[in-house]
């Protein structure tokens, strides 16, 4: 490359003061850029971050390396989805075309304690990953409650902080929870709806709801707000112990899971995937609010679960059931919980993946999942 000399423009030497001022200016620019980076990274700001959420989970549930930070106690299952094709008019997702799609799932109990004793009052979840051979996968996590107790990441965090056990009693401080609910009328309303629907006897007869809203988009580009639910096609068979008694004397540690295991070994379990079509006026950004009962449902097909295994050997353990893993044809709504869940699940997955070599065996053992251990 030819060098260009324009010797007519020799810069005037800087005075000492000029030089110092310019060095100070450069230093200031570096500082401002770095401070901005630190602020955006959440280190020196009061806002709620993924790290603060992880800290709150640990404060509420203790440290359990290798386990999910929430819904820590779980069981792997596998099966398939027989799509009816009825949802294909509303969504171009391959999973809704008529046919069979393999899936991996996980049943779990809410909370960060991987060795908690099964209790009917604990929120139950069903998570599914649909893997169509010729399309994009779909992951969804659903709970057996009709609405969610909070409608924002901040609300979830405050609820978590309020549920932190008091070191003196080992139980959450009722005053803290009361104070939290007092500040969150949406939670008070949601808890009333949740309490009005008593928990069923087991996993097998639970209806699992998406809670968050999504949007289905069809090949013409038409978009409709939806929520979905997995509705059981069987009753729960109760084998382990009395279904109505959560007292520690009679409660068997894994009784809900053991009942589920026994039932899957007996016969495959099935849930109908019902998609509720919302109207434009139905709230999509507030998971604490139920949609009116008269909204139409699409019978998208049937989920069949025929295999069960412990998390220690099952394929579900390494799956992050991120609600934003959606195929084209299913899109997120404006529900802020979707971003919050996706972000927090990702951080939880990163932590537990790193801890995997140090993870103790799960509460439900591989022998138990084979149906060998009888309570």
């Amino acid at each position: 490359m030819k060098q260009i000399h324009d010797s007519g423009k020799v810069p005037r030497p800087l005075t000492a003061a000029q030089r110092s001022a310019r060095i100070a200016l450069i230093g200031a620019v570096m500082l401002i850029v770095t401070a901005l980076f630190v602020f955006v990274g959440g280190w020196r700001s009061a806002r709620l971050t993924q790290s603060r959420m992880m800290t709150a989970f640990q404060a509420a549930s203790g440290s359990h390396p290798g386990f999910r930070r929430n819904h820590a106690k779980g069981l792997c299952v596998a099966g398939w989805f027989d799509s009816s094709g009825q949802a294909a008019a509303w969504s171009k997702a391959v999973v809704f075309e008529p046919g069979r799609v393999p899936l991996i799932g996980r049943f779990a109990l809410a909370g960060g304690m991987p060795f908690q004793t099964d209790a009917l009052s604990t929120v139950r979840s069903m998570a599914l990953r649909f893997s169509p051979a010729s399309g994009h996968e779909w992951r969804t996590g659903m709970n057996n409650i009709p609405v969610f107790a909070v409608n924002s990441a901040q609300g979830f965090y405050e609820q978590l902080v309020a549920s932190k056990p008091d070191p003196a009693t080992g139980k959450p401080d009722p005053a803290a929870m009361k104070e939290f609910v007092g500040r969150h009328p949406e939670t008070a309303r949601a808890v009333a709806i949740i309490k009005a629907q008593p928990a069923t006897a087991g996993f097998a007869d639970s209806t699992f709801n998406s809670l968050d809203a999504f949007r289905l988009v069809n090949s013409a580009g038409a978009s409709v707000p939806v929520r979905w639910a997995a509705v059981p096609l069987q009753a729960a068979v109760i084998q382990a112990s009395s279904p109505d008694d959560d007292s520690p004397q009679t409660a068997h540690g894994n009784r809900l899971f053991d009942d589920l295991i026994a039932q899957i070994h007996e016969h495959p379990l099935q849930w109908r995937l019902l998609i509720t079509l919302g109207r434009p006026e139905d709230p999509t950004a507030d998971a604490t609010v139920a949609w009116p009962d008269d909204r139409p449902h699409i019978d998208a097909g049937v989920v069949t679960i025929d295999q069960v295994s412990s998390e220690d050997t099952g394929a579900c353990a390494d799956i992050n059931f991120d609600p934003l893993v959606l195929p084209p044809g299913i899109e997120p709504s404006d529900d802020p919980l979707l971003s919050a869940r996706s972000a927090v699940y990702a951080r939880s997955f990163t932590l537990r993946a790193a801890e995997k070599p140090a993870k103790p065996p799960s509460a439900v053992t591989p022998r138990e999942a084979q149906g060998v251990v009888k309570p």
Partner: protein
Amino acid sequence: MKSHAARFPFMSRCLHWSMAVMIVAMLFLGVGMAASVSPRYQLLVSIHRPLGIAILILAAARLVNRLVNPPPPLPHTMPPLQRFAADASHYVLYALMFGLPLVGWAMLSAEPYPIVIFGALHLPPILPENPVLYAGLRRLHTYLAYVMFATFVVHFAAALMHALIRRDGVFESMASWRRR
């Protein structure tokens, strides 16, 4: 003093400045996204992945361009230590322009997580499923991003030093768009 006023070729300046904007945006976007639980999170993630791949493609184009259009030599007036720092930081920046997107792609592959670029456009995995490997790569992605941010700050400060203190034409060799 102005012994050196050669400019970077036009293509090199275009690549430099477009990538500068993209990389700085990416660093802030990445660090913000890794902290966020807000509704912005999904938007940030949906920009982060295609932008990262765009940087990877442009980095390859830039490397080829550098071989075709070599940069002008640094002025003879620059002390050897500063020359070394300039060369070393440029090697680090080139390595990271390739390394960060590749580690990001590799880590999502190992998770495994769908590598969505836009809509139905996905990238294939480049590593087999391995959660422990994912965790290591995820951490590496963060550390490399911090190294890149630090290198960017030093690079930016050096550019200002050339512009405001040394005034030796190095800044103008990249920042001047005047016809001549």
